[in-house]
C-alpha cells in the first residue's frame, strides 16, 4: 500500500465515523433547532470532508460538500432555521457523501453517481426558497451562535489540547496563579518532580485535590488519546488463542484434581485465574456497545415514519450494553427489520391513535441489558398490538394450518405464526397487518447466532419483541450431558430447566399420547425426545430408576430431551465442524473437553426438527381437538368461519373446514356432469354454495374461486364461496328458520343475520353415497 493510499484510507475511516455522527447530530438538531453546539459539529464534519477532498482532488465530493456547507453556514448565522426539508436534504447529503466514499474505497475513484438534483435542492434551500422561511423573531441570533462555533473564521476541526494541571488547579481555585507560576519556575530551574508534587510539598494545595484534578485531567484527555485502532483479524486471532488457552487450562485443572501435588496445584490455580482474566480481557476488546448498531435506527425511524405519515418517538435505553463484535454484525439486520416493522405496522397513524384515546405520537422503546450471561434486547411499541385471531384466520386461509389446529391453538402459539415462513408473502385478504413480512428471516438470523426471539402483545396496548442473544459466539456456557458414554454439550441459552424422575415417577412419569411420549410438566404436555434415538443409538434397557429430562426451547416450542446423565455446566469453546459434516444437522459444532476428548455441541433446533417436535406438537393438538370436539358439541360457543355468498353471509363451523384454497377458474374441469379441480394429485369435486342453499346472484365471474375444503374420511370436497370474510368465536343461538336444504338455520353473528351451513348436507349433494349424512357434526 502506498503512502497516499494509507492517507486516503485514514481519511475514509475518519469520514465514515464523522458521517455517522453527522446523522445523529442532524436528528438531534431537528429536535432542538437552536442547539448551536450540534450545529457546529455538523458544520465541522462537512467542512473537514470538503477540505480533505480538495486536497486529494476529489472534485465531485468537494462540490457536493461545498453546497451543503453553504447551507449550513446560513443555518449557523441564523439566517435560516432547520426545517424538516432542510434536515432531509442534509441527511441525503450525508448519504451521497457516503456513497462517493464507498466508491473511492472500492475503485479509488469518486464514481459516476449524479447528485445534480441534490445540489439543486441544497442551493434552493440555501437561497431561502424553502416552504418555511425563517421567521425573523423565531431564532434569536444569540441562541444560534454559541461560543466556540462563533465566527466563520473559526478554525474548524480543531480540538482543544488537554489543559495543563497548573491551569486546572488555578481554574478550580485550589492553587493561586502565583503559586503555580513559582512551581513552574522551580521546574524550569531543574526540579524534576511533577508540578503537583512541588505544590504539595510547599503545602500550597491539599493532597486530595491534586489527585482529583489529575484524574479529571486524564479523563479530559479524551478517547482519541487513550484508545488505538486494532485490526479485527488480529483480535480474532487473539480470541482463538485464548480459546486454546481455556481448553489447555481446562485440561490442566482436570489433571490436577487427579494428582494432588500441592505445588503443581497452586500453580494451576494461578493459571486458572489468569486464564479467566485474560479471557475476559480479550473478550472485552471485542465488545462494542449496542449503540453502534442503534445509532442507525433514529434515522430509519425518522425516514420511515415521515414516509408513512406517522409520528414516532424513539427512546433508546442501555446503549452502553456491550456485545461481541461478531454478534453486533449479526443482529444489525434483524434489529432494523423489527424496528421498521414496529413503525410500519405496529404503531398506528396519529388519527387512529387519538381515536383510540392514546397520544398522537407513538412510542418505540429499544432497551438492552445484560441478564444471566446474555443480552436481552427489547423492541417495544405502544401500537395496536397483534390480533391472534386474525393471525389464525390468515394462516388458515393460506393453508399453513388446518382448521382444527387453528381451533386448538393458544394465543401464544398463534403469535408464533408470524415467524412462519410463507407467512411473509401475505396478501391483504383480511386486515391483519403485514407484521409477518420477513419475520421468518429475522428469527433464522437470530437463531443462527444461538439467540431466541419472542413476542408479547396486547391488543390496543402494543407489542414487545424480546431478543435474547449470547454475549459472544466463541465461548459459551453449556450443559454437558451424556448418552451411551459419549458426552454432548447443550448451549445454556436453549435450556429452560432440568427435570429428574426417580423411582415410581421414572416408570410412569412419561406417558404415551397416541404413540408419542409426553410428560406432564406443570399441567402442560411436554413432548419427549430421546437423545439416543435421535443419535441413532440402540436404546438401552428402558426399566431405569432415574430419567433425566432436559427441557429445551427451540423455534418457539418446548420439548424434553431424555439423556442418560447430566454431568455439569461449563464454559466451552465453540469450534466449527468441517464441511464434511454439513449434513450432520444435529450438531452446532464441537468443543474439546478437559480430558482432551472432543464433545459435540447439540443443535437444539436441529434435534427439534429431526424429532419433528414442531409437527408432532401440532398433530397432537389436533388430535386433542377431536376429543374436545365431543365436549365442544354441547358447548354453544363455537369458532365459526364467515363466508360471503351473493349478498348474504354464511357461517360454517371451523372444525368442518380443513383448508381454504383459491383456484383459478380456468383449472375447473368437468367430470360426470360435475365441476372438479385437480388438487393434491386427486380430483376435488366442487359444489357452489349459492346453488346448494338456493341463493343466487353476485358470485364471481372471472375472479379466482374461493374454496372451503371439507374433508370427511379422507375424501375432500370443495365448497365454492364468493368471499372468505372472517373467523369469529361466539355463542350460537340458532334460529331453525325455514328448513331450507343445506342450512341448519340462521343466527345473528357480528350483528348480521347469518346462515349457518349444514356442511354434511351440502357435500351430500355432490355424491350422496360417498358423503353419508352420519358424518354430520353440525352445531
Amino acid at each position: 500500500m502506498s503512502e497516499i493510499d494509507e492517507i486516503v484510507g485514514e481519511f475514509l475511516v475518519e469520514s465514515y465515523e464523522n458521517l455517522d455522527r453527522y446523522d445523529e447530530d442532524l436528528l438531534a438538531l431537528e429536535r432542538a433547532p437552536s442547539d448551536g453546539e450540534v450545529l457546529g459539529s455538523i458544520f465541522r464534519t462537512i467542512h473537514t470532508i470538503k477540505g480533505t477532498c480538495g486536497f486529494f482532488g476529489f472534485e465531485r465530493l468537494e462540490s457536493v460538500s461545498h453546497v451543503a456547507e453553504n447551507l449550513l453556514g446560513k443555518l449557523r448565522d441564523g439566517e435560516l432555521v432547520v426545517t424538516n426539508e432542510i434536515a432531509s436534504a442534509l441527511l441525503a447529503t450525508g448519504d451521497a457523501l457516503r456513497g462517493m466514499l464507498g466508491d473511492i474505497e472500492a475503485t479509488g475513484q469518486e464514481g459516476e453517481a449524479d447528485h445534480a438534483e441534490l445540489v439543486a435542492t441544497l442551493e434552493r434551500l440555501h437561497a431561502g426558497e424553502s416552504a418555511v422561511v425563517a421567521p425573523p423573531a423565531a431564532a434569536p441570533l444569540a441562541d444560534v451562535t454559541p461560543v466556540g462555533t462563533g465566527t466563520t473564521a473559526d478554525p474548524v476541526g480543531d480540538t482543544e489540547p488537554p489543559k495543563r494541571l497548573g491551569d486546572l488547579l488555578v481554574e478550580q481555585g485550589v492553587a493561586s496563579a502565583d503559586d503555580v507560576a513559582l512551581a513552574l519556575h522551580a521546574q524550569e530551574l531543574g526540579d524534576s518532580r511533577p508540578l503537583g508534587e512541588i505544590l504539595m510539598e510547599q503545602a500550597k494545595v491539599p493532597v486530595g485535590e491534586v489527585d482529583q484534578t489529575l484524574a479529571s485531567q486524564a479523563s479530559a484527555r479524551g478517547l482519541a488519546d487513550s484508545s488505538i485502532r486494532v485490526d479485527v483479524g488480529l483480535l480474532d486471532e487473539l480470541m482463538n488463542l485464548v480459546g486454546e488457552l481455556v481448553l489447555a487450562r481446562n485440561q490442566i485443572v482436570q489433571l490436577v484434581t487427579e494428582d494432588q501435588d500441592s505445588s503443581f496445584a497452586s500453580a494451576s490455580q494461578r493459571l486458572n485465574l489468569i486464564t479467566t482474566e485474560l479471557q475476559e480481557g480479550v473478550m472485552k476488546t471485542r465488545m462494542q456497545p449496542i449503540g453502534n448498531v442503534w445509532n442507525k435506527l433514529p434515522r430509519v425511524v425518522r425516514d420511515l415514519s415521515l414516509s408513512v405519515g406517522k409520528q414516532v418517538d424513539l427512546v433508546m435505553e442501555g446503549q452502553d450494553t456491550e456485545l461481541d463484535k461478531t454478534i453486533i454484525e449479526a443482529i444489525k439486520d434483524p434489529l432494523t427489520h423489527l424496528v421498521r416493522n414496529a413503525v410500519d405496522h405496529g404503531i398506528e397513524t396519529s388519527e387512529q391513535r387519538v381515536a383510540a384515546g392514546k397520544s398522537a405520537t407513538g412510542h418505540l422503546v429499544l432497551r438492552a441489558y445484560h441478564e444471566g450471561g446474555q443480552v436481552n434486547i427489547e423492541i417495544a411499541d405502544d401500537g395496536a398490538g397483534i390480533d391472534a385471531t386474525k393471525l389464525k384466520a390468515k394462516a388458515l386461509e393460506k393453508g399453513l394450518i388446518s382448521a382444527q389446529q387453528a381451533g386448538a391453538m393458544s394465543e401464544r402459539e398463534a403469535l408464533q405464526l408470524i415467524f412462519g415462513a410463507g407467512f411473509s408473502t401475505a396478501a391483504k385478504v383480511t386486515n391483519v397487518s403485514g407484521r409477518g413480512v420477513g419475520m421468518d428471516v429475522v428469527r433464522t438470523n437470530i437463531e443462527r447466532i444461538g439467540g431466541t426471539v419472542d413476542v408479547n402483545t396486547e391488543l390496543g396496548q402494543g407489542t414487545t419483541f424480546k431478543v435474547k442473544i449470547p454475549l459472544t459466539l466463541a465461548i459459551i456456557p453449556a450443559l454437558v450431558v451424556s448418552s451411551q458414554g459419549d458426552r454432548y454439550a447443550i448451549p445454556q441459552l436453549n435450556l429452560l430447566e432440568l427435570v429428574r424422575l426417580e423411582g415410581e415417577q421414572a416408570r410412569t412419569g412419561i406417558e404415551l399420547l397416541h404413540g408419542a411420549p409426553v410428560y406432564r410438566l406443570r399441567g402442560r404436555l411436554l413432548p419427549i425426545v430421546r437423545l439416543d434415538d435421535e443419535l441413532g443409538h440402540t436404546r438401552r434397557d428402558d426399566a431405569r430408576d432415574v430419567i433425566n429430562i432436559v427441557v429445551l426451547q427451540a423455534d418457539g416450542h418446548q420439548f424434553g430431551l431424555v439423556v442418560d446423565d447430566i454431568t455439569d455446566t461449563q464454559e466451552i469453546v465453540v469450534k466449527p465442524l468441517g464441511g464434511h459434516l454439513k449434513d450432520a444437522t444435529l450438531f452446532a459444532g464441537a468443543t474439546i473437553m478437559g480430558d482432551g476428548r472432543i464433545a459435540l455441541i447439540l443443535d437444539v433446533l436441529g434435534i427439534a426438527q429431526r424429532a419433528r417436535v414442531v409437527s408432532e406438537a401440532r398433530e397432537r393438538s389436533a388430535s386433542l381437538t377431536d376429543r374436545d370436539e365431543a365436549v365442544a358439541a354441547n358447548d354453544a360457543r363455537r369458532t365459526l368461519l364467515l363466508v360471503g355468498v351473493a349478498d348474504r353471509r354464511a357461517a360454517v363451523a371451523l372444525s368442518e373446514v380443513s383448508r381454504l384454497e383459491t383456484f383459478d377458474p380456468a383449472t375447473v374441469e368437468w367430470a360426470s356432469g360435475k365441476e372438479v379441480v385437480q388438487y393434491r394429485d386427486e380430483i376435488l369435486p366442487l359444489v357452489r354454495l349459492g346453488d346448494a342453499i338456493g341463493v343466487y346472484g353476485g358470485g364471481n365471474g372471472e375472479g379466482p374461486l374461493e374454496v372451503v375444503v371439507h374433508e370427511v374420511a379422507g375424501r375432500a370436497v370443495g365448497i365454492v364461496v364468493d368471499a372468505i370474510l372472517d373467523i369469529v368465536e361466539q355463542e350460537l343461538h340458532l334460529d331453525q328458520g325455514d328448513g331450507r336444504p343445506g342450512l341448519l338455520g340462521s343466527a345473528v353473528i357480528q350483528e348480521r343475520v347469518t346462515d349457518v351451513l349444514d356442511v354434511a348436507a351440502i357435500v351430500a349433494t355432490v355424491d350422496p353415497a360417498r358423503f353419508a349424512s352420519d358424518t354430520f357434526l353440525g352445531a
Partner: protein
Amino acid sequence: MTTDNEFCTFRLDHLTFGIEVHQVQEVIRPQALTAVPRSNPVVQGLINLRGQIVTAIDLRRRLELPERPEGQEAMNVVVRTPEGEVSFLVDEIGDVVHVDEHSFETPPDTVEGVARELITGAYKLDDRLLLILDVQRTVQLPTAA
C-alpha cells in the same frame, strides 16, 4: 501429470497409495475418535489435533475397500485442504518415495467406480504399483449419503 514426484505412501488393504508430499501436513499415531452420529458413514469421527478439531475420513470406506479388520488401529495421514485439515485413516504408513516421472500411467479404462474418480494414475515401481490419490476429490464427500 505432476511435477512433484515425492510421495508419502501408505497401505490400504493390499494396495499402496501415495499423496504428494507437500499436501501432507503430518502423519500421526492412532487417535481417540469422537463419533458423529447421523453423519456420512465415511466420516469415522473427529480427532483433537493439538486443540484443533479435524474430521477423520476412513479411506477404506471412501475407496469402497473391505472394512478394516476388527482390532486393527488406523494411522492418521493429515492432509491440508482449502477448507482446513482433514485426516485420512489408513492401515499402515510407508516411506516417502521418490519416483521417476516416466513410470507414470493414467488408469486404464477398465478401472471403474469410485477408484476411477479418485485415483489419478499409478507409478510403476519395481515391486508394486503406487496409486496416486486426488486429495481434493477424496475429501469432497458425495452429499446425502
